[in-house]
């Protein structure tokens, strides 16, 4: 009776291939996670800039409203990094005005709503808040 020939070389090669495949999958996953982290960093930066763009629109609107109570907004500004849009200023006269500003940078959009109790002589703000979607404070 003869023993079947042993083939240790093939087992070694097979083991190498299997282990290699596992390691390759793991490292590729980590590579993708790293790329995701890098993209997240850029997205955070865009989001912050979008918020600051909305703030810029709000600042400009308040200054223009103080110069002319008939100022009605409804304008889009192109900024150094992105844009900001003012909706029509809500209310009329010196009391009870509404400012809605939307800032965009990259793919990020952020919105701010401001309720102005009095414009002049001292601008009094009842609320200044970031919102997900605009309310009826300002007409479109």
């Amino acid at each position: 009776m003869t023993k079947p020939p042993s083939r240790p070389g093939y087992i070694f090669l097979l083991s190498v291939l299997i282990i290699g495949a596992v390691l390759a999958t793991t490292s590729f996953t980590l590579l993708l996670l790293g790329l995701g982290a890098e993209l997240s960093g850029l997205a955070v930066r865009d989001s912050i800039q979008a918020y600051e763009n909305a703030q810029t629109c709000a600042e400009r609107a308040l200054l223009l409203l103080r110069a002319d109570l008939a100022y009605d907004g409804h304008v889009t500004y192109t900024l150094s990094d992105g844009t900001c849009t003012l909706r029509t200023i809500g209310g009329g006269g010196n009391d009870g005005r509404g400012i809605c500003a939307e800032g965009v940078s990259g793919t990020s959009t952020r919105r701010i709503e401001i309720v102005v109790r009095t414009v002049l002589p001292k601008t009094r703000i009842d609320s200044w808040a970031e919102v997900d979607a605009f309310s009826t404070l300002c007409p479109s």
Partner: protein
Amino acid sequence: MKLCLRHRARGGFLLLEALLGIAIFGMFITAVSFTLLQGQESSILGGDHVRGGFLAEQGLEASRAIRDGSFAAITAGEHGIGLDGTGKWIYSGNQSNASGGYVTRVTVTASGASTMVISTRTSWKRGVNRSGSVVLSADLTNWRTPATVGNWSSVTAAGTYSSANALFNDAIVSGSYAFVTNGISGGGLMVLNVSNPASPSLTTSVNLNGVGYQLALKGRTLFVMTDDSAAEIKVYNVTIPSSPQLLSSYNLPGSAVGTSIEVSGDLLFAGGVPTTASSIRALYTFQISSTGSLTLRGQMDDTGTVNAIALSGTAALLADSEDARELTMAGVTATGALSLIGGYNLSDSTVDGLSVATSGTSALLGRQKSAFQELVVFDITRPAIPSSPGPWYHEGSGSLVGVDADGNACYGFLAAASGRKALQVVNLFDKTSLTELTTYTSTTGLARGLYYDHVHDDVYLLTTNAVVILQPAGAGAGSCP
């Protein structure tokens, strides 16, 4: 012999195959190491960008906090940020360092007298290949600095525009121009250049095909209520004030006669004389389109004439001729639908409400001349019908055809259909006394209307023969007396 043949059959374990296996394994290890390092590098870069972004944002927020203290503290140049002894943000040096090797620089550039452009750069460097930066920017404006209200304990007539028997009715000021309605045949609307209040001059006159009554302004769109029975409301583009362009007109339903007008957001409010007995509409709302056309949105019955409109939140306050509610409150939705909330019955008399204005939590109602006090002041802190505390009363010198107040609700301005004391200034802060502070006697006829220009702190008194621009003349700045 058979033993020798069995030894030659072991081909799978040659040295060549061992070397091949090692080589393949080595290649795998190299590729894995490379991708692992890349992944790690990307994660670290992402983290750097997040931290850099937050530090750059901190620079902007610090600048905003410094501006909130004083706009003058935002100086042009390159700054770092730090905290003073009280924990408030200040500009310090020309850069600031954070742990982890992050360096932040805030660059401030002036853009006009009232605007500063703030740009913050946070950068980092960790070896030859790992450096980066984040840049953020925003504008800061000087909206927080309070405007000065003069001392209205005395007044002076800064300038006058006269036109005999013009019957000036209402005015509204924007920039260097005043839009004024009148009863001149073939006229109706005047545009005055008031860049120098001491010498207002006529820029142009517009034929309204009737008398011009009240005005409202939204951006560069002017709304005028007229007595043109075919088109009571006329809408003009006044981008070029010297050349108003008619955009549209609106004929109020039926035999309606318009008297009052006001604008809020993209809604126009129009009030008038109630129409027929079966359809007693007296208040309307219109949607204003981007081209200035009007679309009717709401109508409300009112047995009295709506002589004037003032807005407070989601309510319209009406100076009404209805005896049971000289001050009428109408609710308005975002789409312009109207509903009668109710009103306040000044049971001491049946004289009409002629003028109305709001300032903060106060509403001023001017009434026809009678044996009773013509000015009534309400507290409108609560959104329902104003009641207690108040109302408070003050004697006018005639029918109060115009009322207004400054933004602090310190000074109440009253225009009376009288030559003597055509303008009264009262202490609105102390409602229990409403002390008369000063008066102006008109030499150009009876007062017919009043407009307080909040931006320039001027009062435009509309009289029979002139538009008089009045300014505070008391010493120093005004304060609530």
